[in-house]
């Protein structure tokens, strides 16, 4: 059933695909984010209640949405790694976790900077804010666990397990504004009705959401490449790549010693 996915699980193939995709994804991400920011900051009208402070929405909402999106993809990768023992899925967990942690931190920080002028406080221990903070701790836990064991395999397994179990937090974050009384407003666009935001403000927001998604994909490609090289460093194809990087003159002191060492092999 998963036969067509098989070649992508081969580290060497995935390394090349990620290398192929990264420049495009990154360029698109930068362009979309730039457009969204310029549009959202200067070319939309101010909110009739919140004035210009609402412009924070153009980064707050995308970061918050993809802090959860990144967690879902990380948890899916962790599940695949645990059940089918696919190595690259395991490495993807480690590649995504720091990106998700940064997104969560951004959502929290921009939320605080928005909450201060609108609610009169930087922070309240309210359901949405607290569950998002727990998401940050989950990310940090996944990152910390993977390095906490002398046996790297065991650490990877523990962090994958935490990632999978932590999924229960996602619906809690999403529905927190409905289940509990909270300062945080309800869903504006991620609901099954017409978005309760004017189209002139919606477009830069949609671009922002697209931009954060592209950036997540791009950075995942970049970090996954590093993880693949690190974990496959004893394989012939990585050794060849490393030698090629020497020949291209990336390592300054390289050549003399290589010819000297050449006798040894």
């Amino acid at each position, binding site marked *: 059933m998963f036969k067509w996915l098989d070649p992508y699980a081969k580290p060497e193939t995935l390394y090349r695909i990620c290398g192929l995709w990264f420049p495009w994804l990154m360029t698109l991400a930068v362009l979309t984010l730039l457009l969204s920011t310029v549009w959202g900051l200067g070319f939309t009208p101010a909110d009739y209640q919140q004035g210009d402070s609402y412009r924070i929405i153009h980064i707050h909402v995308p970061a918050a949405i993809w802090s959860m999106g990144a967690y879902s993809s990380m948890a899916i990768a962790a599940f695949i790694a645990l059940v089918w023992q696919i190595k690259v899925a395991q490495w993807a967990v480690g590649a995504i976790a720091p990106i998700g942690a940064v997104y969560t931190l951004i959502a929290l920080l921009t939320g605080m900077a928005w909450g201060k002028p609108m609610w009169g406080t930087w922070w309240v221990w309210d359901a949405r804010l607290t569950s998002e903070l727990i998401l940050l701790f989950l990310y940090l836990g996944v990152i910390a666990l993977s390095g906490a064991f002398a046996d790297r395999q065991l650490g990877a397994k523990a962090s994958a397990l935490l990632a999978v179990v932590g999924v229960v937090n996602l619906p809690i974050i999403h529905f927190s504004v409905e289940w509990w009384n909270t300062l945080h407003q309800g869903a504006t666009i991620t609901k099954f009705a017409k978005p309760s935001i004017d189209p002139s403000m919606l477009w830069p927001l949609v671009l922002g959401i697209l931009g954060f998604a592209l950036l997540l994909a791009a950075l995942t490609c970049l970090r996954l490449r590093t993880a693949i*090289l690190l974990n496959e460093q004893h394989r012939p194809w990585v050794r060849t790549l*490393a030698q090629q990087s020497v020949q291209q003159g990336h390592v300054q002191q390289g050549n003399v*010693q290589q010819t000297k060492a050449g006798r040894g092999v």
Partner: protein
Amino acid sequence: MPEFYFESLSAFWQMGGYALFVWLSFGSTYGLLAALWWFSQRSQSRILQDLAKKQQREHRVRAQQQLEEEHNESKT
């Protein structure tokens, strides 16, 4: 094409009195994202060099071991 909303550039910087909060948000966001990109890019561009150095060291160690072995054999 939407028009520029603010009357002047200084009004733009003031953000209707919310300058601190708006610029704090955008500044920290893009600061953090740029840092994440920079660190990821740096470790990616360093890893092949590090692996190459590691290989060279392995080669050197092996060459040295072989030299010593030859030396010991000629002694006995």
